[in-house]
């Protein structure tokens, strides 16, 4: 099967798995675990701080995978 498809690099596969995980982290049943008010972090209730933390994590992880892929990206 996979031989007929374009080769997906290892960072590409991680990126795909991570994307699905990131979506799940923002909805039920994972978000309810962090949906409370306390502790307040950086002045924000936990429910908001958690979302901000997910945004920053998504950015950093995808940036890392993108740089890891490095050479492949320049082939476009």
């Amino acid at each position, binding site marked *: 099967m996979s031989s*007929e*498809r*374009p080769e997906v690099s290892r960072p*590409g596969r991680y*990126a*795909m798995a991570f*994307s699905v995980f*990131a*979506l799940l982290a*923002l*909805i*039920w*049943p994972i*978000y*309810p675990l*962090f*949906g*409370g*008010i*306390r502790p*307040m972090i*950086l*002045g*924000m*209730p936990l*429910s*908001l701080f958690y*979302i*901000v933390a*997910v*945004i920053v994590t*998504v*950015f950093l992880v*995808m*940036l890392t995978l*993108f740089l890891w892929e490095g050479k492949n*990206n*320049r*082939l*476009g």
Partner: protein
Amino acid sequence: MMESWLIVFLVTIGYLILSLAVGLYSGRKASASTEGYVAGDRNLGFVVLYFILGASIYSAFAFLGGPGWAYSRGAAAFYIISYGTVGLLPWYFLGPRIARLGRKFGYVTQAELFAHRYESRFISCILATISLVAFVPYLVIQMKGAGYVFSIVTEGRIPEWGGAAIAYGVVLIYVFKSGVMGVAWTNTFQGVLMMGLAWVLGLYLPYKLHGGVGAMFEEIARVAPELLQAPGLDAAGNPWTWAGYSSSIVISVLGFSVWPHYFMKIYTARNIATLKRMIVFYPTFQIFLVPIMFIGFAAITAFPGVTPVDTILPHIVTSMNIPPLAVGLFCAGALAASMSSGDAIVHAAASIMIKDFYGVTRTEKLDGPLEIRLIRFSVIVIGAIAYFFAAVSEYSLVHLLLLSYGFIAQIFPTLIALFYWKRSTPAGVIAGLLAGCAVVIVWNLVPSLQWQQMHPGIFGIGVHIVVLVVVSKLTAPMDGEHVRKFVEA
């Protein structure tokens, strides 16, 4: 001493003149072909691409509706930040393939790819119809937002219909003249202005009203803790269900990456690396929505009982003693939010109407110069239709707006089948799309079908996938040689 409303008005007009200048000047960079007018000669760089997508999504809804949600529904508003964070990630995998096929076969719209893969003009017409039905109410809301801002800042001296006409007159001129390049560079200018203002207002207001962001949230936690507890409240003020919150995010995420006016921007990228880098950096744009939320939260205890809730931001700005120059900048920011979405929609809607609908119903191909003339003409027509609903008609489009995300999300399963399922057939795809949209309509019209406030689009997607698979299996497979061009792209 100049009257303060006049200063506010002059700042707003200054912004409009700058937008117009940027929009008209930028058109000189593109060629006179359809590819130039619709896809910017496939030569857009990272910064412009980042802002064209960032600013098109942050519409009047984010700037006025976002604080309104935070103010009335609390943590429910976090769904708006959440979906944009992951909404563009499908492009990381599919975007490069779409861009390569676009270069190879010369696509500039979404439906061109789908129609070619499934060798069906009918698919093109269905997609064009779904797009236009979803676009018009969206555009109307943007125009209403712009008119509203004008009327507030001039203290009613310019009526809402007049304000909408001035702001969208400017938009139509630069989209008509410069096409996607006008959209791209004005969005960059408008995006920077909007983000700057969001941070200034979002930090200033909690500080001024409560002594800081931390103190503000402490106060809300004491007075109205239910607002900070995820997933916040529903429209009626009762606690929202997790099914409602989660399904809204899922439908928005599926819809996000296939909204036709975003999707078309994949073709505009200079190269694959630029496209992927933009997708990686895209979540940073979401951070801009956090201070927007602060604005709404700041008003909860300071300005209770304001209705309609969407007017909370202008209400704060005009009732606090803020210097007129700053109020003017706020108005410019709100107009920027409205116009940076409206311009992308009007441009995409016109291109789709001509290329994907009118173009495919004809037997011979449209020649380039005629095609551009028709698209420019459609820019004016679509602008006029939306303006009619925004300024003249009393007809409420709220219902159509609710349908639009549910409709648009139906394009996502088709996109996946296009690239990953060789056995999918034109009949399967058409039946799936129509069944999905029909289910969304029925679920919206018959409230008793609701379960746990689940988004109607979820049921649509479920039925869509089943119908797509069953009908594809029952119909003859497509030519393997043809399908391989896409599945192995």
